[in-house]
């Protein structure tokens, strides 16, 4: 198989029907080894469903799935010991302590050494900052504490791949920052991290690669630079002279839109016109008598790309 060794997750034409409706329509995911892969998409776009299929919890209606180079679900029992995961929130027995819950899940894993079990559980709890609350019943945990315990479960032993579905759900700012550190340290250990999220800033901060899912279809995929490059750069002018600026910009071949205002000035943004350098725009503006208080050219953020790809609407797309 060409290239399979470099891909930790590879799906071809992954399709899933649920309740008579197509939830995933032919997804081709390619997650490179060693990457931190952000899996983006609005609510209900199918992120969790994809993850369930990758981990053998649900079956694909059609399409091919490979995780760590092995075919899923055929080689599931060989692959899963090397994968740690948090899927659709944590799930624990409320009447057991955090430690007891992790010991239970670890006991179910036949591939790990029982002699190091206690120590590995303690280390995992420490990594997510739960050592203090380890002996407390999970039923008395707060939302964020449960979430941390769920992450600890993914860290019980060395993994080649860690899948985190909305890991910062319910976490406080410290917790969120800890997750970022954690992901970084996992990458240093050689673990590939697959994070699903709809928090774009988070993905921008920690990910090297990303894919965007929209209503069950993959609309973008690649390294973060590639994705940013796909978004068109925009220029931004701060000036008190609104009409003249519009005239100049139109003459240069671009359409100014959303005007913001700051005291005594307007903020005008527009797509950077093709083949026109920023310095030429400034020169033309000044020559037309526009008082330029500020000027910048910004690469589109992931957020703009995300909105452009998945639509402005707030309603969940079905």
């Amino acid at each position, binding site marked *: 198989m060409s290239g399979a060794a470099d891909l930790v997750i590879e799906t071809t034409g992954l399709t899933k029907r649920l309740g008579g409706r197509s939830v995933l329509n032919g997804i081709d995911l390619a997650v490179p080894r060693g990457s931190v892969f952000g899996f983006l998409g609005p609510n209900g776009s199918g992120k969790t469903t994809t993850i369930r299929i990758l981990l053998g919890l649900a079956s694909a209606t059609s399409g091919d799935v490979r995780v760590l180079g092995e075919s899923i679900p055929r080689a599931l029992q060989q692959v*899963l*010991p090397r994968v740690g995961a948090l899927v659709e929130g944590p799930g624990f027995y*409320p009447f057991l302590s955090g430690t007891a819950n992790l010991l239970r899940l*670890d006991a179910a894993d*036949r*591939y790990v050494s029982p002699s190091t079990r206690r120590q590995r559980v303690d280390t995992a709890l420490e990594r997510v900052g739960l050592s203090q609350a380890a002996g407390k019943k999970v039923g008395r945990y707060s939302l964020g504490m449960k979430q941390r315990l769920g992450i600890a479960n993914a860290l019980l032993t060395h993994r080649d791949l860690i899948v985190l579905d909305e890991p910062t759900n319910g976490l406080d700012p410290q917790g969120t920052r800890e997750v970022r550190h954690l992901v970084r340290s996992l990458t240093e250990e050689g673990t590939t991290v697959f994070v699903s999220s709809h928090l774009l800033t988070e993905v921008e901060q920690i990910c090297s690669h990303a894919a965007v899912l929209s209503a069950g279809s993959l609309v973008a995929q690649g390294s973060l630079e590639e994705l940013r490059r796909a978004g068109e750069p925009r220029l931004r002018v701060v000036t008190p002279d609104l009409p003249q600026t519009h005239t100049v910009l139109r003459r240069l071949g671009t359409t100014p839109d959303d005007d913001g205002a700051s005291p005594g000035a307007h903020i005008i943004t527009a797509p950077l016109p093709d083949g026109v350098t920023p310095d030429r725009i400034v020169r033309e503006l000044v020559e037309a008598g526009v008082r330029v208080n500020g000027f910048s050219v910004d690469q589109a953020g992931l957020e703009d790309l995300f909105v452009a790809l998945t639509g402005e609407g707030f309603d969940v797309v079905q």
Partner: protein
Amino acid sequence: MSSKTLSSSTASRKSVGWRFLGSELSVLFRRRRTWALLAALAAIPVLIAVAVKLSSGPPRGRGPAFLDQVSQNGLFVAVVATIVAIPLFLPLTVGVVAGDTVAGEASTGTLRYLLMSPVARGRLLAVKYAGAVVFCLAATFTVGSVGTLMGALLFPVGPVTTLSGTTIDVTESLVRIALVCLYVTLSLLGLCAVGLFMSTLTDVPVGAMAATVVASVVSQVVGQLPQLEWIHPWLLTHYWLGFADLLRDPVVWDSFAANAVLQAGYIVVFGALAYGRFSTKDVLA
């Protein structure tokens, strides 16, 4: 496949997996609910013994079999309590535990994490079933041992007259009580399999529990209808009260064997149904 993908520290060698069964049992018996169920079962012999002790004179006619013997020989408390518990109380508690096996894990969200640990689906069902069977043992022996204890505390204990008319000593009687407990455990194995199957059908444990208990009740009701006599030998509950043979001298094993065959049939059929359903099920809870 490249050798690189196999050279991971975790996927080296797998153990037999008894630890998961141990962990299953420890989770089962660390639940307050399990102890509440056993306590409810223990209350039956206590009530019977106390009621007989407080009532004046030997009871006449009605009441469960052997009730009239209790005041003369405390060992009968265990047998009477077992007879009382069989139609409803035991199936109720076993239904709760067996119906909870898979659906309970699904409802707490632990099912997906167990499966990802990983536990193969067949193995999960086997371990869950084994846990329910251990609970059946605990349940029947709770009734038997608390009954024996209460009998010994409140009434005289002595040699027992068997149904064949001979007399057996106290030790032999205790062995017979243990045999009755084992017999009742065996009787419940089929119901456990039914519960396991019901539990794979839903993510709502209460539904699976209720369905399991209803199955046992329906089976007993059908067993009472002479019009449906042809179906009786196939009923889950057909041999439930058929342990009188264990109280003869010598022990007659016929009903024990027939019951074992019937229960094995239920285990095979409902075990297969449970596996068929669960092995291909999408775990979306």
